[in-house]
């Protein structure tokens, strides 16, 4: 293999893995505070379509990025209100958010499908994604606020008794996760495959969710996991193109299979499970308990 070929492969891996890093790192922070948001796919699609439409209308990358982020804030804000204030079931609400996002993005983008745009250089986002993982890892382990987020996720009643504002913390982490998902979507429709087509995220939100479990809620492992998932997908394409016979369907299910294996592995040991999964994940918090 020549150097050019390897650089080319790395280039494709970087470009195709970045949306997983964005959506995954956002969800990791949300889950660290004890909230499970299954709405990533919907958030990504709405982020993608909002950015795309704004770019087509205004021709301005900054506005399109801004509105895409706003769409993430609004949608995840609604999700946060439902699960935190009205205490709806997180799983059902997250699924509803995904289904809503798929429909909403399709409706908004109906007139814009097939409009050609000039894509943005993906390297800005690739660099940001690495910085982001570094920032989140530092934030969660070395800053006081990060420790509060983790305390809220581990035991919200204790955190509340200590005087921390559980609801506010969770609002912020949910909105952070939402914004990261819409950035992942924006990256897909503006950099990765510069176009708008319905359902174009094609299940990447679900892979990002699996990734958080695969990484056992640790930022650096999430980055490594994302590049394993992305790298394997691109490697199998390269092997196919060289003429090696491979079971392609197997590679499509690989991220989910790997996640199940990790789940089995960490659940086989209660202590290990406790160390990684936030204990209050998916448990609603009531102030008057």
């Amino acid at each position, binding site marked *: 293999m020549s150097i050019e*070929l390897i650089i080319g492969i790395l*280039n*494709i891996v970087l470009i195709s893995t970045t949306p997983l890093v964005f959506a995954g790192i956002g969800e990791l922070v949300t889950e660290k505070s004890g909230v499970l948001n299954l709405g990533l796919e919907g958030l990504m699609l709405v982020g993608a379509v909002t950015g795309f439409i704004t770019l087509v209308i205004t021709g301005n990358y900054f506005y399109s990025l801004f509105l895409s982020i706003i769409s993430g804030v609004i949608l995840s804000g609604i999700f946060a209100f439902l699960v935190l204030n009205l205490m709806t079931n997180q799983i059902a609400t997250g699924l509803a958010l995904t289904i809503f996002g798929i429909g909403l993005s399709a409706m908004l983008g109906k007139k814009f499908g*097939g409009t050609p745009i000039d894509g943005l250089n993906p390297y800005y986002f690739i660099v940001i994604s690495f910085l982001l993982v570094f920032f989140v890892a530092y934030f969660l382990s070395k800053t006081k606020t990060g420790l509060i987020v983790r305390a809220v996720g581990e035991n919200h009643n204790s955190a509340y008794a200590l005087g921390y504002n559980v609801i506010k913390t969770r609002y912020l982490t949910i909105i952070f996760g939402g914004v990261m998902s819409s950035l992942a979507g924006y990256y897909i429709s503006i950099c990765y495959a510069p176009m708008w087509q319905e359902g*174009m995220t094609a299940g990447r939100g679900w892979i990002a969710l699996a990734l958080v479990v695969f990484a056992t809620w640790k930022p650096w492992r999430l980055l490594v996991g994302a590049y394993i998932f992305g790298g394997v997908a691109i490697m199998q394409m390269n092997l196919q193109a060289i003429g090696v*016979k491979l079971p*392609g369907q197997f590679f499509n299910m690989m991220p989910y299979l790997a996640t199940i294996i990790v789940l089995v592995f960490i659940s086989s040991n209660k202590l290990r499970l406790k160390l990684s999964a936030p204990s209050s994940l998916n448990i609603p918090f009531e102030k008057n308990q």
Partner: protein
Amino acid sequence: MLRKILTFLSFLAVISVSAVHADQKKIGFIYIGPPGDHGWTYMHDQGRIYMENALGDSISTTYIENVPENADAVRAIRKLAASGHDLIFTTSFNYMDQTLEVAKEFPDVKFEHATGFKRMDNVSTYSARFYEGRTIIGHIAGKMTKTNTIGYIVSFPIPEVIRGINAFYLAASKVNPDVKIKIIWNYSWYDPGKEADAANTLINQGADIIVQHTDSYAPCQAAEKAGVLAFGQASNQEAFCPNSHMTSIEDIWGPYYAAKAQAVVDGTWSSEDTWQGFKDGMVEMSPYNTKLLPLDLILEAKNMETAIENGTLHSFEGPIYNQAGELVVKEGEVADDGMLASMMFYVQGIDGEVPQ
């Protein structure tokens, strides 16, 4: 505002008037993707619109988009059948058994299944001879490639796709015996990101022409970005890659849909198998890109189209060997429709194996 409300009210009135139209036939469509994919589903939807315009008030149409090729398809088809539709088009190969299952329950409803081969008294099948278009683009690719490497992105290993690969390769290797095709199976019809990855991988491995048999225009766009050539799929994709798009194979469903709907209106519909190509206008080539292709090559391509229409040229003319070196089509003969419909082998010269 008032004007908008009035328009809306009159729209409602039109709907309610057309709803009470006694002998109006209801026609339903099941789509695998969104009509906005600018590929496969887009062209079926164009066919639906053509049919609506052609038949006017005597029909009304409905469609369900993004129907997966699994048990969900049964529910979607049954939903249309149970809600009084007279004719239902199911527009993807893997709706085959699902279509038959629902057709057994609703013997009075007519079904039209695209690209399949199982028929019943109330189920017709229809398809286009896309492979004729693949012969044209194979010829062009064989002459235009400089690296002698062509990247080919495909969805699922089904006869229609494999037939396309073979037709393409036979034509390309006829004008350029050194040509190699690199094939990537994506196992999805529609995932723009993955299609772009596959195109970039192939370009990285030295392909200077990208051919696709998937539904989004991401591969063509990736080719444009990398500065290599490409062919579009299903609809004219020139707008998305003006500097690399040589031509597209277009699926033209409208006239067929209109004819079948008319047959239902007239009560003359019967179960049959339709497989049409250039000759009947079900497959067309988009305008050849004069900026990229030399004039004599465009003329050659046009002559080939005419020859295929006349029957003097066939995409699968003997002698054709399979990868094991066995003669599958004798010299002086052409592959019959039975062989084409069930083609699950690569012809000699293609590297790799057909995935099982």
